[in-house]
């Protein structure tokens, strides 16, 4: 049994009556005793229909909310340990793999073959992005990086791949220098320039433009709006005679304008927020309203941008924020109820 389970069990036993019975039973189930005690069969296999509310006068008003998110656009940065591990495995692969079949890829005595041989002499291994390392021979054990080496960093590996595609292997050799001196530009082989990958940090990142969708490309961004009371919340509205799915689509249009291409994911909510009033309110239909519950639907933005001009909820501002930034903006009670439906990355 791991520490997490012990902790939850301890918390559950301490919490006393505030935790519901079914949860407590689940938590305090002891495996040994469960195996020994034979449960009555009909109880577990029975279908228990949902029970009607005890006091029909008490109720909550129902809101529909929508969590519009932009999924991560690029891969995440690797942890230094991960990148070091991957480089170590690649070098191990150089030691264990069969030799590269050169003649299957380069015909003998062609310029491409000569270039391959030149490059092999420089880096000692067929792999282009693992640094200068020889997998065969007496000194193949020397596969560890020294202090300050940058072979395991992704940026360095990308540069090496680009350099390999662009260069001929003759750049800083004596032969090339001799050729230069002679002024013989006729035989110089030029590879075409390779397009560099775009920067992983965008202009919006540098300016910290929280309204931009091109910020934090590695993270999921969520649309947060500032309502009439000046609080930052996810867009939401009263649920009319409509489904949650339809309500989510309507709220996106009414709050963020029609200039967003969105997809409401599925028909079920991914989380809910419950707000209890200090004093219960008597509604027109004779119900005793204790508070309000907001059920959040999940939506993805494909293109476009939010525009709060002529929105119907009196929203004043919007932001696209990652999870931990949302925590700083919203109220603590709100955060505790919505945090588990937001993705870590």
């Amino acid at each position: 049994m791991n520490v997490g389970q012990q902790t939850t069990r301890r918390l559950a036993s301490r919490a006393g009556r505030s935790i519901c019975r079914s949860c407590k039973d689940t938590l305090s189930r002891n495996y040994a005793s469960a195996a020994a005690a034979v449960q009555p069969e009909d109880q577990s296999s029975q279908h228990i229909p949902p029970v009607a509310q005890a006091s029909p006068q008490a109720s909550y008003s129902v809101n529909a909310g929508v969590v519009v998110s932009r999924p991560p656009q690029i891969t995440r940065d690797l942890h230094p340990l991960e990148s070091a591990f991957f480089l170590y495995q690649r070098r191990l692969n150089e030691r264990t793999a069969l030799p590269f079949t050169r003649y299957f890829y380069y015909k003998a005595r062609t310029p491409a073959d000569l270039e391959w041989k030149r490059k092999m002499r420089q880096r000692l291994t067929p792999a282009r992005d693992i640094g200068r390392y020889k997998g065969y021979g007496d000194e193949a054990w020397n596969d560890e990086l020294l202090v300050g080496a940058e072979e395991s960093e992704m940026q360095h590996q990308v540069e090496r791949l680009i350099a390999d595609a662009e260069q001929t292997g003759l750049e800083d050799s004596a032969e090339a220098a001799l050729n230069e001196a002679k002024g013989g530009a006729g035989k110089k082989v030029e590879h075409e320039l390779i397009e560099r990958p775009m920067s992983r940090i965008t202009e919006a990142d540098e300016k910290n433009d929280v309204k931009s969708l091109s910020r934090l490309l590695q993270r999921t961004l969520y649309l947060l709006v500032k309502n009439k009371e000046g609080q930052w919340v996810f867009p939401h509205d009263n649920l009319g005679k409509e489904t949650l799915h339809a309500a989510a689509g309507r709220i996106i249009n009414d709050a963020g304008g029609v200039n967003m291409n969105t997809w409401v994911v599925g028909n079920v909510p991914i989380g809910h927020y419950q707000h209890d009033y200090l004093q219960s309110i008597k509604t027109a239909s004779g119900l005793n309203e204790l508070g309000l519950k907001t059920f959040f639907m999940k939506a993805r933005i494909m293109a476009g941008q939010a525009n709060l001009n002529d929105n119907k909820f009196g929203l004043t501002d919007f932001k696209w924020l990652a999870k931990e930034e949302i925590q700083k903006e919203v109220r603590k009670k709100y955060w505790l109820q919505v945090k588990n439906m937001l993705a870590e990355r």
Partner: protein
Amino acid sequence: MALRELPLRSASALCRDTRPAIYALRPSTRRNASTTTTTTTAALSEVEDTSSFSIAPPSADQAQAFDPIARSRLRRRGTRELPASRYQYRPPKYYRGPLHPHQPPPAANPASREFQPGPFSLPRLEQTYQSTIAADVLALTYQHFPPNFRAAKVENRLREWQGASPYFKNRPLRPPRGRGEVLRLLTPPRTFRNVPKLTKVTVHSMVPEAQENSANLHVAGMVVQAISNVRAKTHKARHNVVNWGLREGRYVSVTTSMEREDAYHFLAKLIDVVLPRIKEWKGVPGSSGDGSGNMSFGLTPDQVALFPEIEVNYDAYPPRMIPGCHITVHTDATNNKDARLLLQAIGLPFYGKLND
């Protein structure tokens, strides 16, 4: 061991609040990760007064000047320290049972003969699955049940033999109705633990011409190996099939099966590079799917030649010998619908009548 301790622990957790306060002063030998460690470190420091963590790392000059190759050569100058022939370890070639004194190392050990290095990267498709696709598929397929709901248990999915015949006793249960029917997989309620995911990708290439000319089989093996990054396996025809020109015992096909990193890289390459370049490709046929989470589709020889690994040295393959192939994507979904949803989320379109 941990299970045996459980009742004691839960009992002590229950009556912790009723314990007299003097117990709090008693040093506890049990330590949890969450408890403070000040007293225990003080106790440990008496046992062990030096730690490797307290020693400063070598200075920058030393680190710069360190050359492992030169040190090794210096050490081995003149005579070798150890007679190499005697102390070089080579694992045994065959596993001779658990009682044999000479045991091979586990396959995860680089010294093992079965060791395969990897993973070499964290594939982009896998990251997308973790961050986006899995959560969306969960939201799309989630079915809510009220608390305390227990689904009615299906006791026997197979029928009993009815009747008075004495031969019905101890006879295996009757198979499902219908010809060639088998029991379908059960689909458990969707939770965050059983979101369908990719388990394996198999590439299969059938070359009946290899019976006359084995070069076709070699080329097919090279092609399949090049596009999948996994060693290809060859297969013999199991039966004579006159219509297909198959003769029993002749090698006719090659397969590779990719898992984890290779599978993700292959699918990403297929979806982002190869399929968009196929002219008028309609998509994966909607009739595909075997009802247990596996989806297959085929590629023609022209389409296989669009793989970047083939294209880079297309001339090295003999003309008109590049084979077509069938690609099967294995998922751990339990029905066609879920498997198709996952593949659509990954980026494979489906067309035509859907097989549900």
